[in-house]
């Protein structure tokens, strides 16, 4: 288990508890009471730390190296029913954007999401979850295919941003994202969107226009990463904590601003601490959301979605 800096007090207590148990097993000394005391302290420390997470700490948790990624979720939720589909039919198959069909219970869903890697090699293979234009076009192809057959769409958002590369610009990164956003506003099947990690700007929104938009508890969603915001507005990378606070990018803030619909609770300490529990929570949230949408006519679905996005914004006059 990897620990973040702010989790070190917890790690220390966990190590102590481990040692205490070993002593108990290997010697005659009665450690029950000592162990209990450490456990108490540990529970208090966990509560203290995880119940009062700052915005920046949540950003760190959203990027935790052991956090479950898109394919982990889909494989856990759909099991063997998942069939991955590839390619944008015009340029190539973007490994940073995955998609495919799978079942939850009796219902088929089209799953789409950005995919990160879990070690150096796979991180490069997945381009760190930063899709190119062909990734967005692949996503749109799958959404249109789902629309054609009346299959609901589930998008899982986890990206530090769309890839800002030379070739990405040549192939129209802006156009690809813009096209997806527009087409998603009028897609005639239910769209359920869940931020499972990082929701960075247009790169996230490019597959993120949904009837129901949910965020896992320790994720972030904003127009820019706290680091980039710090470098632009403060002209230094040092102010990322302040930037994270200022951007109001946590799930709680986003719900307060009515930009997302609901929050999915994570196990104490983050999604990676109990992956199965996380997968179950995500699966339940998809089913629950789908229940509220499945009986709407395509016209009602689209007009409600359009209405929702048309109302976003705060101004005077």
């Amino acid at each position, binding site marked *: 288990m990897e620990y973040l800096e702010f989790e070190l007090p917890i790690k220390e207590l966990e190590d102590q508890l481990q040692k205490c148990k070993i002593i108990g097993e290997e010697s005659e000394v009665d450690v029950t009471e000592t162990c209990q005391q450490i456990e108490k302290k540990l529970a208090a420390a966990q509560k203290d730390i995880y119940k009062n997470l700052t915005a920046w700490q949540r950003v760190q948790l959203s990027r935790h190296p052991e956090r479950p990624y898109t394919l982990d979720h889909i494989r856990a939720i759909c099991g063997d029913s998942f069939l991955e589909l590839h390619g944008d039919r015009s340029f190539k198959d973007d490994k940073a954007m995955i998609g495919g069909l799978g079942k939850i219970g009796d219902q088929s869903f089209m799953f789409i999401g950005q995919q990160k890697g879990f070690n150096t090699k796979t991180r490069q293979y997945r381009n760190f979850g930063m899709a190119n234009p062909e990734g967005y076009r692949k996503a749109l192809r799958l959404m249109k295919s789902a629309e054609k057959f009346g299959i609901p769409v589930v998008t899982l958002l986890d990206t530090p941003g*769309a*890839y*800002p*590369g*030379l070739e*990405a*610009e*040549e*192939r*129209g*990164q*802006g*156009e690809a*994202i*813009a*096209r997806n*956003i*527009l*087409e998603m*506003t*009028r897609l005639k099947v239910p769209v359920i969107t869940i931020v499972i990690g990082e929701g960075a*700007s*247009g790169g996230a*929104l*490019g597959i993120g*226009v949904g009837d129901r938009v949910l965020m896992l508890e320790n994720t972030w*969603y*904003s*127009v*820019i990463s706290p680091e980039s*915001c710090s470098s*632009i*507005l*403060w002209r230094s990378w040092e*102010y990322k904590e*302040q*930037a994270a606070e*200022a*951007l*109001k*990018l946590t799930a709680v803030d*986003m719900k307060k*601003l009515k*930009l997302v619909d609901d929050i999915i609770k994570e196990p104490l300490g983050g999604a990676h601490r109990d992956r199965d529990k996380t997968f179950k929570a995500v699966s339940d949230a998809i089913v629950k959301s789908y229940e509220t949408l499945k009986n709407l006519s395509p016209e009602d679905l689209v007009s409600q979605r*359009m209405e929702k*996005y*048309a109302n*976003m*914004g*705060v*101004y*005077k*006059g």
Partner: protein
Amino acid sequence: MSWFKRKTAGITTTTEEKKDTPKGLWYKSPTGKIVDTEELEKNFYVSPEDGYHVRIGSKEYFEILFDDNKFKELDKNLESKDPLKFEDTKKYPERLKVAQDKTKLKDAVRTAVGKSKGKDLVVACMDFAFIGGSMGSVVGEKIARAADYSLKNNIPLMVISKSGGARMMEAALSLMQLAKTSVKLAQLSDAKIPYISLCTDPTTGGTTASFAMLGDINISEPGALIGFAGPRIVRDTTGKELPEGFQTSEFLLEHGFLDFITLRKDLKDKVNQYIDLITNQPLRS
């Protein structure tokens, strides 16, 4: 013999008597050409020396597009609020105040309806001078309402983009303006009302990732910077030297993302020619 002889030491001319060059009499283009500003105005703000298209704002574009500079401005009094209580080195309301005082504008876009070559046209034009033409709630709402006006009255819509992207001080609210404006453009498209996107120097970030790239035609002026990620970010991320002309309008035309590039003097004609052709109406001369 010395040819220069000052009779009394020091400068004796009083400040009032000094012959000052009034500000704004000359314009210097990036290639170093000096142009008389009056000349510039007469030439659609294009340098007659080197064809450089000077960055202009809504005031100038309205003047270029609307007959006799006559138009009705829409939603004139919409202003930004500070929903996030955003503060970096400055508070957001202070930034707004400074921008308003400096530019005499309410926010980074103005929308209007008027006659262009005798027929109604709705124009939304961004102003780069206002916090880098950044798109926050007001920009999103005004463009959405302009599209609504087009929809209700069956008038073609033209959006002139000139923006660094979404406004950071409104964070995710700015981001959602991409979706909001796209909703309206989808409705416009379903109603088969022409939408023309003019990308001017510069059009980057969230603007490119929404309405700027969604026109029935996307057009531009010569030499404009258009892209999703800014050139500095692309260079820093990839570590590659950027090719000559990267992300210029000519580059986008070549890669298939623009329908054509027009000189500013031909803009009004070209836009109306397209509208007449696509709506199958007689061409206006």
